[in-house]
């Protein structure tokens, strides 16, 4: 069947071939114009004038000699009026959306030529309206009265609020229009209405008009079209089908049925009405799929199945939801070599834009303290992660990032960030106000532009952003920019950019056509594929946001849901007019967690279109859920592994010798694979700025602070012995020691101020309590003599083991938090931030990976014993492993010493490591022999409980 536009083209050509140039063909949108021209081109057989092709807006604006101002300008203007009339107006940013709504209402009122004064009048009693309201029908009166009747005598609080605002609206309307007039601005409804009001007197366009393919006119449009049809022989062509005209219930025919009753319009309708759908209905297929995104795969398949793609132009894919565009584009089969897309490329998801927005966010969450500026770490980290910052020379980004994450900095100082080169200064330098903000953004964009090289796409959207930015600046600045809150500017900025799209290139008439719903008007395709056949997408959900309540809208002829529905229903059925096959796809799952409801049109067709059995059957298309099996991981000790392992052996002369620490041994005992990950493969554990302080950090700080405290003591007093009486004096040094420990840990130079985030600030104070407690305990147990404290003092040892049949010496090492001589024994102290047990059943248990009660802290301190013995074989004091654990210390009965004890039995204190030495060494040897045994692989622990807190559990899938 011939397409609608072709029919019109040939009709026009046949009748007006010689004066076609006199015609202005008015179509609902530009796209239809292009297709119309294409049809016309195909029809001519000798050079022929083109008619002029315009949209109805063009016509109105030409007649009115004015174009509407942009939304932002209009809303800002509206706000000026609003804030004069309303008491305590909200700030512009909060007003913005209300303003949008108000503007839309005003526009509707004008488009539908309603009487604003009457709409916005408060009607206390019906009496008042009887006289000059006689134009209303009974139904309208009913609507209005019932609305106002719902106001109780003593109005509720909400009603009062409503009325207070309501009463001002027509003043706002009047003054707003007057104001716009005076500055030569207008919104579109305003222009429309004026044009219609002055139709008889205004300057007419040259030649004749032909209105093609309209469905729903606003009152203004209707008046204008009628005027030209009646008085200026304008032509009018409808694109319709009797299928939805005849049935009064069919909303798709709503408008046509009305026009058919009109005496001017009636003669313009074809008689009889076309019965296309009755004579030849397209073949329908319906598909349901769980995920939205899979609709793209289905479309890909449908297009692929059609082996002969005779004419790509004959196929259209309709995307009610434009999010699906890119998934769809990437699944197009090879045969589809040309595509024409009416939707644009959304700028808001490009990295350039997100980068700019991140800069704004940075400015939003900043704070001043003591004349210094700080940025919230989140915004800073976001920026540092962007490609543009990472492109900066050197490893600055990494450096800054690691500074922030390791030091857990919540607020990052501006001066620190500014210190780097390149973009850093521009991005992080303080922006005091809106004016500077725009300037800075412009500067930054220029820098980015220099980076883009020959990436055309990128420089194009940069340019777009730049233009938009300038425009935005022009609008914003007159508002008294310096006084505007940055927050607001940022919000508006986002608003403005959210909508921005880059058009796609392409010959619009060639290739597969992909478009949104409304763009399909007047176009006909042989094959129609519609995605998102879901309620809420097609038709879209009720988005009629208005400050005028439903009843009043309806009563005064402003469009309500009904009209909206009718427009979409028409758009849908029109697509079926001349199609041969129609594929409808919907998703059974909506937004995350919601259910996708299939479109009403599917139900309507099932009931009314007389579908065949086959067509009624929906095809459910889903991807089978098939999680790959999680195979166990076991890493054999190949050469590469051996090489790394050998670094722990005394043999050879590698530069990178390392010693096995007690925590490495503990890790190995917990899980061999975990040992592999950490010590062989060296996969880092996740590290982010968390507002938490992890126990390891806490432990490190505690150790460092105590070291500083006691080293300072020894230096001052020039002695190693600590008496009970000394402790009191030490207390004053606790806080500075902690400060210093923190500095040292986070590599902060002396002069640089520290800015502790909330949690770290608390940690610091807790640490203080911890240290004070240690001192209390030390006071109680004094005197003692400090032997070694220094973190730098790493104790080393070697242990001989059998590896693959030969003797090898394994390097062991570790840092003992503190060694002191106390009551004739040497204490090997470990500070712990948790609550560590001190009992263990027996030495064997320390090495028993099956045991749930294996005491790691005990093993660690025993290991210290081994280290100490190795380093001081001449030592004759008993060695006492000891644990100062945070929780235990607050217990009145605190004792730091290990205890060998079976559960629920009496135990014995570990008085001297020497008593256990043999067993410990034997146990250790056994572990090490396994570790170095080339035959035993690194495999996963059987105890899944161990995986719960393992940083590698994602990798293991546990």
């Amino acid at each position, binding site marked *: 069947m011939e397409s609608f536009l072709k029919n019109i083209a040939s009709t026009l050509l046949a009748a007006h071939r010689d004066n076609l*140039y006199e015609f202005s063909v008015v179509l609902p949108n530009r796209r239809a114009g292009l297709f119309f021209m294409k049809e016309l*081109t195909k029809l001519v057989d*000798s050079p022929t004038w083109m008619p002029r092709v315009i949209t109805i807006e063009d016509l109105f604006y030409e007649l009115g*000699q004015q174009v*509407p*101002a942009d939304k932002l300008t209009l809303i800002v203007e509206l706000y000026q009026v609003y804030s004069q009339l309303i008491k305590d107006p909200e700030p512009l940013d909060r007003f913005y959306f*209300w303003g949008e*709504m108000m503007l839309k209402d005003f526009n509707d009122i004008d488009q539908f030529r309603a009487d604003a004064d009457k709409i916005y009048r408060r009607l206390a009693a019906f009496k008042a309206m009887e006289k000059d309201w006689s134009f209303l029908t009974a139904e309208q009166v009913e609507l209005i009265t019932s609305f106002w009747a719902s*106001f109780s005598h003593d109005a509720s609080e*909400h009603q009062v609020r*409503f009325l207070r*605002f309501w009463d001002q609206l027509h003043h706002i309307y009047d003054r707003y229009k007057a104001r716009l007039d005076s500055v030569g601005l207008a919104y579109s409804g305003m222009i429309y209405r004026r044009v219609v009001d002055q139709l008889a007197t205004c300057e007419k366009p*040259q030649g004749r008009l032909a209105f093609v393919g309209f469905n729903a006119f606003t009152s203004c449009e209707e008046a204008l079209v009628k005027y030209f049809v009646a008085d200026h022989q304008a032509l009018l062509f409808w694109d319709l089908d009797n299928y939805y005209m005849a049935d009064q*219930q069919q*909303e798709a025919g709503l408008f046509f049925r009305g026009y058919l009753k009109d005496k001017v319009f009636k003669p313009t309708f074809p008689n009889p009405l076309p019965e296309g759908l009755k004579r030849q209905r397209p073949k329908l297929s319906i598909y349901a799929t769980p*995920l*939205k995104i899979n609709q793209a*795969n*289905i*479309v890909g398949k449908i297009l692929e199945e059609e082996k002969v793609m005779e004419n790509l132009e004959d196929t259209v894919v309709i995307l009610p939801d434009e999010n699906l565009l890119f998934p769809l584009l990437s699944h197009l089969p090879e045969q589809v070599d040309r595509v024409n897309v009416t939707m644009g490329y959304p700028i808001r*998801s490009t*990295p350039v834009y997100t980068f700019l927005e*991140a800069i704004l966010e940075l400015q939003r969450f900043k704070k001043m303290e003591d004349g210094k500026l700080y940025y919230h770490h989140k915004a800073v980290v976001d920026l540092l*992660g962007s490609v543009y910052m990472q*492109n900066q020379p050197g490893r600055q980004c990494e450096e800054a990032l690691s500074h922030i994450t390791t030091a857990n900095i919540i607020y990052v100082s501006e001066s620190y960030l500014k210190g780097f080169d390149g973009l850093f200064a521009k991005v992080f330098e303080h922006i005091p106000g809106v004016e500077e903000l725009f300037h800075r953004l412009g500067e930054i964009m220029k820098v980015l532009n220099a980076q883009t090289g020959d990436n055309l796409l990128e*420089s*194009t959207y940069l340019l777009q952003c730049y233009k938009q930015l300038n*425009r935005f600046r022009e609008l914003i600045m007159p508002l008294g920019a310096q006084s505007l809150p940055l927050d607001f500017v940022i919000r508006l900025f986002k608003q403005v950019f959210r909508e921005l799209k*880059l058009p796609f290139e*392409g010959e619009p008439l060639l290739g597969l056509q992909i478009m949104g719903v409304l763009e399909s008007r007047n176009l006909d395709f042989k094959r129609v594929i519609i995605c998102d056949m879901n309620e809420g997408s097609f038709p879209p959900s*009720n988005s009629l*946001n208005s400050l005028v309540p439903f009843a009043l809208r309806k009563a005064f002829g402003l469009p309500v849901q*009904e009209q909206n*529905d009718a427009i979409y*229903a028409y758009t849908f059925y029109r697509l079926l007019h001349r199609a041969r096959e129609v594929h409808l796809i919907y998703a059974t799952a909506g937004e995350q*967690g*919601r*259910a996708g409801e299939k479109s*009403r049109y599917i*139900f*309507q067709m099932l009931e009314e279109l007389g579908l065949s059995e086959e067509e009624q059957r929906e095809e459910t298309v*889903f*991807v089978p*859920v098939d999680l*790959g099996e999680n195979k166990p991981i076991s890493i054999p000790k190949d050469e590469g592994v051996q090489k790394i392992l050998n670094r722990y052996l005394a043999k050879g002369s590698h530069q990178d010798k390392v010693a096995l620490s007690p925590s490495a041994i503990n890790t190995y005992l917990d899980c061999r694979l975990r040992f592999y990950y950490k010590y*062989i*493969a*060296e996969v*880092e554990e996740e590290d982010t700025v968390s*507002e938490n302080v992890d126990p390891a950090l806490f432990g490190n700080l505690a150790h460092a602070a105590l070291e500083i405290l006691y080293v300072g003591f020894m230096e001052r007093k020039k002695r190693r012995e600590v008496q009970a009486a000394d402790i009191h004096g030490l207390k004053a040094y606790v806080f500075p020691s902690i400060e210093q420990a923190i500095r040292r840990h986070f590599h902060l130079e002396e002069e640089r101020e520290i800015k502790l*985030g*909330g949690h770290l*600030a*608390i940690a610091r*104070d*807790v640490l203080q309590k911890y240290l004070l407690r240690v001192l209390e305990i030390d006071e109680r147990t004094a005197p003692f003599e400090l032997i070694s404290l220094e973190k730098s003092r790493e104790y080393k040892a070697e242990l001989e083991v059998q590896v693959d049949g030969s003797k090898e010496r394994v390097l062991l090492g570790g840092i003992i938090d503190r060694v002191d001589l106390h009551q004739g024994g040497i204490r090997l102290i470990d500070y712990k931030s948790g*609550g560590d047990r001190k009992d263990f059943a027996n030495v064997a248990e320390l090495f028993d990976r099956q045991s749930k009660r294996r005491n790691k802290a005990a093993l660690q301190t025993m290991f210290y014993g081994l280290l100490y013995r190795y380093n001081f074989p001449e030592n004759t004091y008993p060695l006492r492993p000891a644990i100062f654990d945070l*929780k235990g210390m607050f217990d009145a009965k605190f004792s730091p010493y290990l205890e060998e004890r079976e559960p629920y039995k009496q135990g014995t204190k570990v008085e001297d490591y020497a008593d256990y030495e043999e067993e410990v060494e034997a146990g250790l040897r056994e572990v090490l022999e396994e570790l170095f045994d080339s035959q035993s692989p690194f495999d996963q622990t059987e105890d899944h409980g161990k995986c719960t807190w393992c940083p590698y559990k994602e*990798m293991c*899938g546990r």
Partner: protein
Amino acid sequence: MQAITPSFIVYKSSAGSGKTYTLTMEYLKLALVHPGAFRQILAVTFTNKATTEMKERILKELRRMTKSINPEEKMDAEILGFLQVDELELKKMAKSTLTSMLHDYAAFSVSTIDSFFQKVIRAFAREIDLQAKFEVEMDQEGVMNRMVDRLLEQVTADEHLHRWLVNYAVERIREGKTWDIRMAISELGRELFRESFKTHKLEIKQFLNDKENLHRLTEYISKQRKALLAQAQLIKSKANEIRVRHGLEWTDFKGGKNGFARKFDELGNNRNLLPDLTDKQKEDKDDLDFWLAKTSAKREQVQAAFEEGLGVLWNQMLTLYKPHYTVEAIRKNLYVYGVFKQLIEALDTIKEEENIMLISDANDFLKSITANNEAPFIYEKVGNRYHHYLIDEFQDTSGFQWESFRPLLVNALAQGKTNLLVGDVKQSIYRWRGGELRLLLDQVEQEVGHFGMAINQLDTNFRSLANIVNFNNALFERLSRQMAQHLEDELNSGGILEQAYEEVAQKVSPQKENLTFKGKVRLEFLENEENEESLNEMILKRLPEMVMYLQALGYRPKDIAFLVRKNAEGQKIAESLLQYGLAHPESPYSFDVLSEEALLIKQAEKVKCLVAALKYLKDANPSRQKTLWLHYAKVEGVEVSHEIFDPSPSGFVSGKPSGFEQKKGAWLKLPIMEMVNELAEWLGFHGNGRERAYLAAFKEAVMDFSSIHRADLQGFLDWWEEKQHKLTVRISEGHDAIRILTIHKSKGLQFKVVVMPFLDWKIFDASKSTVVWAPFDLPEEGINTVVPLSISSKLKESLFSPIYNEEMIMAYLDTLNMAYVAFTRAEEIFWGLSPWKDIQKNNSGTLGINLLKALCSGASKAIDLTVHYDEEQKIFDFGAWPEKREREKVDPYSPLMRWAQQSWQEKLTVKTTTLHLLDQVGEREERIRFGQQVHGILEKAKNERDVQMRLDELYFEGVLQETEKQHIASQMKELFKLKDFKQWFSGEAKILREQGILIPDGQQKRPDRVVIFKDHAEVVDFKTGAKQAWHQNQVRSYMELVGPLVGLPVKGYVCYLDPVIIEEVN
């Protein structure tokens, strides 16, 4: 026409009783009255899924009715009777109702409570001071985290807060907990979202607003505690004095080493003021018999010591417990309670800043709206008026929701309109989410019953076979009585258990009655001497066997569902079955399972791989690469070895890392959605078969993310971190695998076979630390507030014991309901495993024991359970297994999908510009740009006036800036001073602009302007650049075309704009 019926109908719908059927029927009764009647009905469902199902069901029945009516069917019979019409008439009515529904679909209102509420709230947004456009935030956990972040950030500025939190941390350490207070704050902070808190929000806010108040409360608590401590220590020392005086050790008293007397020594410990006592020890000890062992050698001394006051001291000590536990109960949450004010403020800021409304706030807002306004006004504002409400799953409605609804409902009822509630108290398992079952139980009746209420029982079970129904009838009748009795014994109050289960008995549906297979219930009680853990192993080992047995009977994997209470149990089951399956590849049976856990998108290796890649792209940390290749290897099914972490040129990942490095820069400049797509393509994930469902779901997540949020990489990764635990793939009905799901998720579902391998749990688990809010008034101390209490067994002995008791009753009901939901999911077979315990020796604290008791002692009305319980075997077996059936064959499924990918850029380019941003400052380029604009304007403008309009247009579009606009305008003015130029724009001639000439070969020629004067025509083309030879030719060719068309002599001009030169063409 209508029979007179009470206008308020309540359906109590036990499991499987055809609730949807009934709702549909009732809906249709109301809707069929006249074609537009449906517009006044609002059916409210619990979930979005239910909404869709309900709508489809109504449409389906209507469609059916247009074709055939079956008066035998209950639905049709009732509707015929109700409407008083004949079949033919009904068909017609169905038709017209269906038509009007389909064509006024927006008015077909079936919705969840939430979406209805939101609709109302949006209509009132301005009146209740919300912003015009707000997002509804579903993720309260995320908000919670941000709230705590904010709180902690304030520490640096707020000294008081700082000190308070440090004290809290230290306090926690003292109590042997981790000092990290974050978790603790979040835990209690969650209360902010709950109704139980919100009910008291005002009072609490008021109380906390005055720092003094908090101070007073803290002081009071610590004063009390000190006093108690002193008393305890006093008792301790007095007791010891007495003991020593009589030369005794505590072991000399009754019980010796295990005697209670030594408890005196545990008194007055700072961490634990009072010793923990057994129930026996808590009784008064003012009789010598308690103290004196019969065989005691120190009889006299003991007696003397007792008489000197040990008994009295003991009893004195006992009196300390109540105040002590009361103080401790408050103290436990005092620190977090103290920062509630700051938390609330932080929450408010977040809401304002992010412009969100929490989903949990909807109820609050609506409550204020409906309380504030008459129903008609609400309807006018919303634009819909409802006369009939049909509310489903009413047992899960919360108190706030009911309060919001009530005014609307009352309004409808007062007008004599029919309204309907459907629910089942027994299936109320969402108490923790605010579900208030008492509403259905009696409150609603009390509040609105006076409108005339009909309570209907739906008492036939259409879901399950006879034996299942009968078994459940007997079991739950028994169980509810037994548990109520237990509560009666414990608390002197059986609570509402029996009331809730009054009408538990169901009829077997006639269709099921006559089947040969009657259904089966089998409960095995397993015994294991060792411990719970090995018992669990035993159970897990048994599962593959059971699954095989069932499949041998002919059940498909998808017919079988494992129900569990906790996800962790489900995971174990999944593992056990999977492992068995792996170990027995030759088995003819399927061990494929679908657990909730396995549906998580993040579980898939492909997804993990992509996430690792994204992370690597973000921070270039080499460790990420290792992770990336590990997952890649797993996707590819390659054995993981060291080579992956240390790529060698010959190995499996060789080349990949360097390839990745090369692409990196380009990927990073893509929008996140495309980035993921390209990565997946590069890694070959689209071609490779497995886990594509996960891949697609991941992409969908990315798509959803970037449609709402700022779509940068870092942002996505943060978002993913937060959401990954919730995002799941969707299964469709056809998927043939054994389901594993929690009882909560199983609600509303049914399965042929239900297996519950861990049919046992603790009923009242006080360690879960549920929070309740209790008024706490001490006028003399100036304290008047509501405090949060964590439920623990100690609360029972505090002043707050009524709260404890209430909680306990509700916990019993929860368990009973969970069991009810679980047992009633089965259509044909229920198979449970539970640990065996001696019912004589064990108290009734677990479900398992209660089941055993019910089975052993339960002669009930319906069937005698004891007959089927074999005490020897410890197996309850009721009904025979079904006959073996052939398993239906299932064809392999190949979805209609295309996976291959191509970059879109190969087919499509964005309209790029050759202009560069930097060019804007270059003078030459500026002129070019201006030239282009001028050209564009001239081409379109009809006359001089038009030029201004076109300029405005460009300005409003953002193409031109104000200064540029002025500039061009003045340039234009200059142009129009030229006479030749001007007449091209004058009204005297006919002007053709943008109107070319069509040429038969499909071409179009478009001179910028054709001006037709009376005696001749002129063709004009505007040029921006420098003069070119072809310009003349071009115009000439136009002239040749125009000539014949106008039939007049034609002149041609090239008009250069910069500088302006008008050149005639000859």
